């Protein structure tokens, strides 16, 4: 945990590994614990927990691995989830509830129902998604405290 991005902000950063289902969720669990220790409002914590967990699962399931960075400021919590490709072909489609490209193995774990990105958007106060085919997908999420 280091102070960065100005005076009153705390930065957390986690490496997320592709296909590592046994550890998937650890980063989100840690983020939730830190927010609790900081005494952040429980409703905001729940929104952050769900958004980061869905983002973390997305990186594990769909990407070549990536990183989740969280900036905790007095007014909001910003989450940046950036992976190393393959990128999303059709973002509008990916944002539709029920649309999914997940494998059967992932569906057996209870994911891949096409709810991930819509869920993240629902719990975010600000939501931005950007993707370059073959390069990366990046989510920028803000939740107000």
């Amino acid at each position, binding site marked *: 945990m280091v102070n960065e991005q100005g005076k009153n902000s705390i930065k957390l950063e986690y490496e997320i590994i592709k296909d590592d*289902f*046994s550890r*998937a*969720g650890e980063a*989100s*669990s840690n983020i*939730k614990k830190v927010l609790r220790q900081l005494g952040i409002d*429980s*409703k905001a914590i*729940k*929104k952050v*927990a*769900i958004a980061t*967990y*869905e983002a973390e*699962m997305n990186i594990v399931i769909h990407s070549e691995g990536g990183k989740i960075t969280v900036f905790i400021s007095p007014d909001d919590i910003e989450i940046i989830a950036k992976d190393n490709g393959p990128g999303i072909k059709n973002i509008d489609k990916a944002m539709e509830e029920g649309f999914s490209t997940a494998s059967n193995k992932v569906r057996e*774990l*209870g*994911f*891949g*129902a*096409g*709810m*991930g990105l*819509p*869920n993240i958007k*629902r*719990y975010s106060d600000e939501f931005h998604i950007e993707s370059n085919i073959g390069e990366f997908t990046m989510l920028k999420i803000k939740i107000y405290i």
Partner: protein
Amino acid sequence: MKTIEIMQLLNAECLAGESLLDMEVDHAFGCDLMSDVLAFINEKTLLLTGLTNPQVIRTAEMTDINVVVFVRGKKPVKEVIDLANKNNMILLSTNHILYTACGILYANGLKGIPSRGGA
């Protein structure tokens, strides 16, 4: 409803959190789709599921669900039980199928969550 009553109604075995069985739950949600659990969260909700992987515990943790009932006699591996213990969760296992387990709890007054829970 107290978790101990749920355990008795479902003739369930307690796999984790035995000392917490006094804990109250207000609503229940039966589902094998973790993304749906994340979409329909609510306070003091009991989750009934046939899945036993670590993502069930993580999903419960993120949504503040403290009680999980595994149906069809399913039991998770030790790592999953350890993860639940670490998060102060109660894990129960019942031989009933999901539909029957939900039916028993509903008939005894435990309601489902509203169709779209908010954050």
